[in-house]
């Protein structure tokens, strides 16, 4: 059987590895995988063609060699990565989606970033229940089987952690879009509208808020206004067609489209209806935005319009030299669809419209491309998204002017990659 892709245990982001760029740490693997053969002298026949390859001669493994398929061993570097020093312990920690290795709009299930507050709960679906209680006509308990008998919907939504790019509030810090923007994934969910379940129990007129609570050992809980609960929230049990992954809340999670990832309670086991918010730890101590005057905004739920160039980027340098070049990236907004993405190669002095390709769905990632003829000179690459509400992605300076340096959450500022003549890219900020 073929070698399984494995997490590169040696890759610990540190000053050194960031400095030497993804080139050595991650890009090297990519170069080896796809760049081979580029340096042939003209006129020399390519052994990739002239030599008989094993795979061309001998049969490969039969069906069922991997009953649950895995990626090619040549893609072994495409993994989630963490930054160990960010948190005290991997049980309450985070890892990041390798955005620079993906294309299109869907994030594969095994690459969706993880954030747990007490590790991955391993929940037996046969013993999982969803309870609805509080200000309802009849408190109810559902089994997983009950849930799957309600009318289902399929929806593609992005999930972004409110702290995505949070390390960059004070200035460029982490060298790689996996680390600066990778608390993000985009998945097609299958589930039941929360509204349908609430109506089954009957919300009393005094019910203005819900509390969503998880079954894990952190007992994760968030208050959500009833308008949102009755609008587009989804109680989901499938992601990209298969059962949720344990680390994404198996067997059932809440989707709160367009709003910060922490509210998308995993291992969802209880919905309580009440007349006031609960003010639990994740909406007071955390996920409140400290402003320069020392006061703090609370209930900052929506994720604002944002985009990032994923290729090239520090972990994905350009290895082909000058000539026809593709810049690509993703754009998204918690306020709806993306109307337009602009790309600048001179640090925001001049902008061109990028081409959006693939489905354009509300509160979902959009894929954009910008193609040009690179002359090999150094560039400052930026992207700027505009959503259907007309909100324009701001610069980081504009955000700091409004919110100071200690806000942590909701950093949707424009990212700059400094593309050098040798094809390496670096995380910078420009005037």
């Amino acid at each position: 059987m073929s070698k399984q892709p494995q997490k590169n245990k040696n890759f610990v982001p540190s000053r050194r590895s960031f400095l030497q760029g993804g080139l050595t740490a991650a890009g090297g693997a990519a170069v080896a995988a796809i760049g081979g053969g580029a340096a042939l002298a003209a006129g020399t026949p390519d052994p990739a063609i002239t030599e008989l390859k094993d795979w061309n001669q001998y049969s490969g493994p039969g069906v069922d060699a991997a009953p649950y398929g895995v990626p090619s061993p040549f893609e072994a570097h495409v993994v989630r990565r963490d930054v160990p020093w960010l948190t005290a312990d991997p049980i309450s920690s985070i890892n990041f989606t390798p955005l620079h290795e993906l294309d299109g709009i869907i994030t594969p299930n095994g690459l969706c970033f993880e954030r747990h507050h007490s590790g991955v709960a391993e929940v037996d679906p046969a013993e999982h229940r969803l309870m609805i209680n509080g200000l309802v006509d009849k408190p109810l308990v559902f089994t997983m089987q009950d849930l799957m008998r309600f009318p289902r919907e399929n929806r593609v939504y992005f999930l972004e952690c409110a702290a995505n790019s949070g390390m960059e509030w004070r200035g460029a810090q982490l060298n790689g879009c996996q680390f600066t923007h990778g608390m993000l994934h985009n998945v097609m969910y299958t589930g039941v509208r929360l509204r349908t379940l609430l109506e089954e129990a009957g919300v009393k007129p005094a019910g203005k808020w819900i509390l969503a609570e998880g079954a894990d050992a952190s007992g994760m809980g968030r208050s959500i206004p009833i308008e949102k609960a009755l609008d587009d929230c989804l109680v989901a049990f499938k992601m990209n067609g298969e059962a949720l992954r344990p680390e994404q809340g198996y067997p059932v999670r809440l989707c709160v489209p367009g709003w910060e990832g922490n509210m998308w309670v995993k291992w969802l086991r209880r919905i309580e209806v009440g007349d006031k918010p609960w003010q639990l730890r994740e909406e007071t101590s955390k996920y409140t935005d400290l402003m320069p005057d020392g006061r703090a905004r609370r209930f900052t739920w929506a994720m604002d319009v944002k985009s990032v160039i994923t290729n090239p980027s520090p972990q994905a340098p350009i290895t082909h030299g000058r000539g026809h070049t593709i810049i690509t990236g993703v754009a998204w907004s918690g306020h709806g669809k993306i109307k337009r993405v602009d790309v600048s190669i001179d640090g925001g002095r001049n902008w061109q419209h990028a081409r959006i390709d693939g489905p354009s769905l509300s509160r979902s990632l959009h894929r954009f491309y910008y193609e040009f003829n690179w002359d090999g000179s150094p560039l400052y690459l930026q992207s700027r998204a505009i959503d259907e509400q007309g909100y324009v992605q701001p610069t980081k300076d504009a955000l700091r002017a409004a919110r100071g340096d200690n806000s942590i959450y909701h950093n949707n500022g424009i990212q700059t990659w400094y593309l050098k003549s040798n094809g390496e890219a670096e995380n910078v900020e420009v005037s």
Partner: protein
Amino acid sequence: MSKFLKFTASIVLLGAAWATNANAQDADAGEKVFRKCAACHAVGEGAKNKVGPELNEIFGRVAGSLEDFKYSKAMTKAGEEGLVWDHDSLTEYLAKPRDYVKGTKMAFAGLKKDDEIANVIAYLATFSESAEQAAAESESAPAAAPVETASAAEPAVNAADAVIPEHGVYHLGREALPEEIAAWDIDVRPDGVGLPVGSGTVADGGVLYDENCAVCHGVFGEGEGRWPVLSGGFDTLTADRPVKTIGSYWPFASTIFDYVHRAMPFGNARSLSADQTYAITAYLLYLNDIVTEEDFELSNETFSEISLPNEENFYPDDRLEEANFATNVEPCMENCGDGPAEIVMRARILDVTPDGDEENGAGGID
């Protein structure tokens, strides 16, 4: 004929696999139990000391003998008096750590189930050479029955016999019983709704805190290593590096009770009674100078007397008022900004990324 042969062969193979897995299954179950320990202990290749010592080669280790770990006096003494970790001593220690080694600083109540203890020990044995050998010689523990997993479907009831409830639109689910709601609905709001009946004093809370919380959060709530800081940080919210604690930042005392009751101690959530949680909450208020008397008693009745100093400094999201949110503004497309763009910050210069896992003062993920 050939088909039949292949069939028997695969059965024999399967049987063999199960037989040799007898020990492994035990240890597999133990790997899950070990999650209760993993907040504090690492085991396996490259395991380092965390809150507790690493547990490689624990069989045959003299208690409290790792040189690079700071044990309690009690544990060091137990080792000096001859305590060596083996199957029996581990069994007793893990059932009731504080009874077996009086004064141990392992803030863990103990494993309640015998099979959990046996399984976690079997798991630890796989990282101890001496134990592996002993196990090979002695009789193996009984294996759990292999689980049939081909189909997860439950046996069907006769469809016509299914009872259909009256409620709702789809008549799905059933009414939640009061005992069930009581078991899960433990949330507490700032107005006191949800507080259970009970009480506890600052003094009681101090004892409980030292036993259950101080290993991570520090004796004064200052936070050990990178574990969260729970006290202090007053007047730092406008500083360059704000320290957000219960005293300096949190708006409501109810959040302390709710969170500690549902999620702490880390790795052993929901193990504290209502009285214990009142006592610990009172102590955390004391560590933050919000109450000052050691005999102060926090209860469902005195709770409303408490308010936190930073409460009024929270206000609803008003982002949309920022200039950044102006709509219908056509952003500049050509010759924007003054002169060509120049680098003002780069990961290289502003890089506060430490090597490896050194202390790091930069913005965390919260």
